[in-house]
């Protein structure tokens, strides 16, 4: 399964959810869905905006774990 480590990367960058949501142009509610792993998919544009803002690679945010 794919797990989202966005909260870890956010903590490393010392950025709040509200601030990140505002900077990447999505609602805090949607960012919360992404952080809690409820999201079923992520757009490349959103991933690009997150990586650009947090100065990281997609692999830092998304991780594959065997069931």
């Amino acid at each position, binding site marked *: 399964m794919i797990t989202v480590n966005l909260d870890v990367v956010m903590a490393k960058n010392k950025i709040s959810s509200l601030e990140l949501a505002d900077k990447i142009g999505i609602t805090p509610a949607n960012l919360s*869905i992404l952080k809690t792993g409820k*999201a*079923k*998919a992520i757009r490349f544009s959103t991933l690009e905006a997150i990586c650009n803002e947090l100065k990281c690679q997609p692999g830092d945010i998304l991780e594959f774990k065997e069931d």
Partner: protein
Amino acid sequence: MIKKSFSATLTLVLCYVFSACLAFMCAFAPTVFRWYFVGYRNLPSVAVTVTVTFYVCVPFAAIALYLLIKTLLRIKKREVLVSENVSAMRGLSWCCVAVCVITGVAGIIYFPFFFIFAASGFFALILRVIKNVFAYAVDVKDENDYTI
């Protein structure tokens, strides 16, 4: 072209009218059936069969009307592709199956019930298909809603 909201309102009004008709028939079914089958057609045994069959079908008709009204109220609130509507469709389909079985048995005694048996059976099938389409649409919408 009829406005969408008007169409839903019209259907809702018709459901309420149908509910009133059902309530009226619940109160006066024996009198109405006795008048028609005994007084007009001279078939006293059929009057009993039709009355009993009608009262056995009434709970399912009431449940179906309740589900229809709840669904229409949700549609008016623009809650269309939601799991509650899928459950309502499933309930409606089972109500039709119940009426199909009841009228199938009653049809052995009074043949014209077979027409209702066939119609409700066919309608149950149509509702099952619509329910499956709705369930798939709800899945697609969920996936779309959870694509960030």
